[in-house]
């Protein structure tokens, strides 16, 4: 059904193709779905996520918006109030700060304020993440702001399968959602995979164990899933068997999967790309410390960005971000505790 690919033989799809398919399929399935954002129509999006969408569904359902993030969100709220479902793109998730009030105060609270009369099926999605040399304003992972703003789902897929399934899940969830796409993964060939022929949506709030292990648990999401997996390979060589949990959805959080793992490994390293203070890794450490304290054989640890912006020059960027090396060192420290 999607415009994107109609292959005889199945091919592996990358992350951006997966997102594209999700949008085409949901646009087809739900005539009340509207997409809006900067340059998403004529251009097809800065990263091509909406390529071909306007040609297929018209300029009134796929709207090139002025450079007005607050209005992109606010009018999406209006569309939802008028019964529509909305995908609102931030060209980079960094620019969400310009629409911040409309997100946290208008959209996130609408259902709550109206005692459930008004639903807000609005997915605000955009490319996020560092490691690409994007510097301060094209590298952000600002998910923690939204986790501390009740009423928002917060999602961050790390694979093509999840990207497609979670975007569909988010668009069907009926709640406002901030959807963090990892732009460094968009076209990463190594992670391309076969996607189901049939329609599927991943419900929000389910973590996944990416690698089983017995000695230590990495809990993370987004790009750091791969760093943790790499670290696990390194650690394997050193005789440490690490489990890697990709939480996929931050709000709601699948605590069970995490606690089950900690009950087994007794060691936690929570990882996020964002700054440390009040970041989501801290939330994971707090939840585990509060609710799975007895399982912990060592202090839970965080590996996060230092409390700095993301600088531009490569040595600086690498210095402040989580790395495989930092993960391995932390893991060794943890298991040797």
């Amino acid at each position, binding site marked *: 059904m999607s415009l994107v690919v109609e292959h005889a033989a199945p091919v592996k799809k990358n992350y951006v193709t997966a997102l594209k398919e999700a949008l085409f399929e949901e646009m087809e399935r739900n005539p009340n779905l*509207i997409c809006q954002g900067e340059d998403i129509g004529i251009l097809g999006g800065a990263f091509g996520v909406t390529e071909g969408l306007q040609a297929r569904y018209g300029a*009134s*359902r796929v709207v090139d*918006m*002025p450079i*007005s993030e*607050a*209005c992109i*969100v*606010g*009018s*999406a*709220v*209006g*569309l*939802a*109030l*008028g*019964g*529509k479902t909305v995908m609102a793109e931030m060209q980079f998730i960094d620019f969400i700060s310009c629409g911040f*009030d*409309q997100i946290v*105060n*208008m959209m996130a*609270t*609408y*259902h*709550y*304020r*109206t*005692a*459930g*009369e*008004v*639903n807000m099926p609005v997915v605000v999605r955009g490319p996020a993440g560092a490691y690409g040399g994007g510097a301060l304003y094209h590298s952000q992972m600002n998910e923690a702001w939204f986790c501390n703003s*009740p*009423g928002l*789902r917060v999602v961050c897929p790390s694979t093509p399968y999840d990207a497609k399934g979670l975007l569909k899940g988010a668009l069907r*969830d*009926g*709640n406002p959602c901030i959807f963090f796409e990892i732009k460094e993964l968009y076209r990463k060939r190594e992670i391309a995979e076969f996607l189901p022929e049939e329609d599927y949506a991943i419900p929000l709030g389910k973590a996944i164990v990416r690698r089983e292990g017995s000695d230590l648990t990495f809990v993370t999401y987004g790009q750091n899933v791969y760093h943790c997996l790499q670290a696990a390979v390194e650690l394997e060589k050193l005789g440490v068997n690490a489990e890697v949990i990709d939480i996929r959805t931050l709000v709601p959080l699948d605590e069970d999967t995490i606690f089950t793992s900690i009950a087994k490994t007794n060691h936690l390293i929570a990882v996020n790309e964002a700054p440390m203070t009040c970041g989501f890794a801290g939330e994971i450490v707090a939840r585990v410390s509060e609710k799975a304290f007895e399982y912990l054989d060592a202090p839970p640890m965080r590996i996060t960005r230092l409390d700095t912006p993301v600088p531009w020059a490569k040595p600086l960027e690498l210095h402040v971000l989580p790395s495989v090396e930092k993960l391995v060192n932390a893991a060794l420290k943890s298991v040797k505790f």
Partner: protein
Amino acid sequence: MSRTSGTAPAANATQKGDTPSIRPRDLLSKEDCLEIFRQLYLARYFDVRLIKEKRLGHLTGTLYSSHNQEGVLVGSLYGLKPNDWISPIHRDMPAFFLKDIKFDWRRADRMGLSIEEVCAQVWGRVGSPGRARDNWSHIGSRSKRIIHSTSMLAGTIPVAAGVVYADRLDGGDAVCVTFNGEGSTAQGIFHEAINYAAVHKLPVVTVVENNQWAYGTPAELECPTTDVADRARGFGIPGLVADGQDVFDVYDKVMTAINYARSGRGPSIVECKTFRAYGHGDHDDDRANKYRPKEDVEKGRARDPIAICRATLLALGHIDAAHAETFRAEGKNASEAKNDDFPPEVVTFLNEGIEFALQSSLPPADEGAKWVFREAK
């Protein structure tokens, strides 16, 4: 008497170059005119009564009086079709029940909140549409087509634009009238939303209630032009100026804007010149007496919209002197005005609302944790 008897004397039209041969008001019947008069009473009484109730300690939260600004509310709302949307803000409390209230205030199918719902909101009771989860003017109703505001000024204008966009996609012809103070027009979102509406010719009418003050800040520190309506010029859209004290002038200008919007020509701004009677909120009454020159206040309150409407109706012969006497609260502050200064139907109507509110309970505590998210289907 014909249903289109007109409401002359000649419009005190301040919109430059706007002298249509037939003004919207000319299509109003005598009954309409009387209803408008009655609604002004109603809005005034609501305000007076709430101030009294607040002083008696019956209410929590700040009261943003709409006294002296009723002409803006009634005049803006009267010509709306039931399916139109509105977006009132803090000083527009009466708008919630004035919407689509024509003639039979208790019509079951009204597209506006009932006085009971509004009173339950003011008293913070579970019978309010939002079950007392948010305060004062932050109510609304999807089914009644009233946008719920947040506190963040001008924040509903993009929502208004979105909701009429949705309506248009569904083949509707709804217009949305948003209300904003002159101070609120300094917000960035005001610009973003009107810009978007202008690009897409969305039917959003922004009524600016220029009451000269934004809390303790005079209009000239909020807006560089004398007429706030001039902000429209930046978007190439109509910017009309109405005498906010003359309900019929407001009606003319807002209906002109509504017709323009409904016909697909896009948004516009209608500035209604008025004056804030009291302090910003009731907590500010004393201070406002200090920061606002007494003469300004006297001048600003001299032209009571109800008195002006009454004079118009008398001149038109729609009412006689006896009828005109039904309202005796003209110029009176809340502390001076008594129940029998108002027509009994108005008092009764509000009493019923208050009665309902008082019988409505506080919401149960555990509702505080509900509806953060939509319940799973």
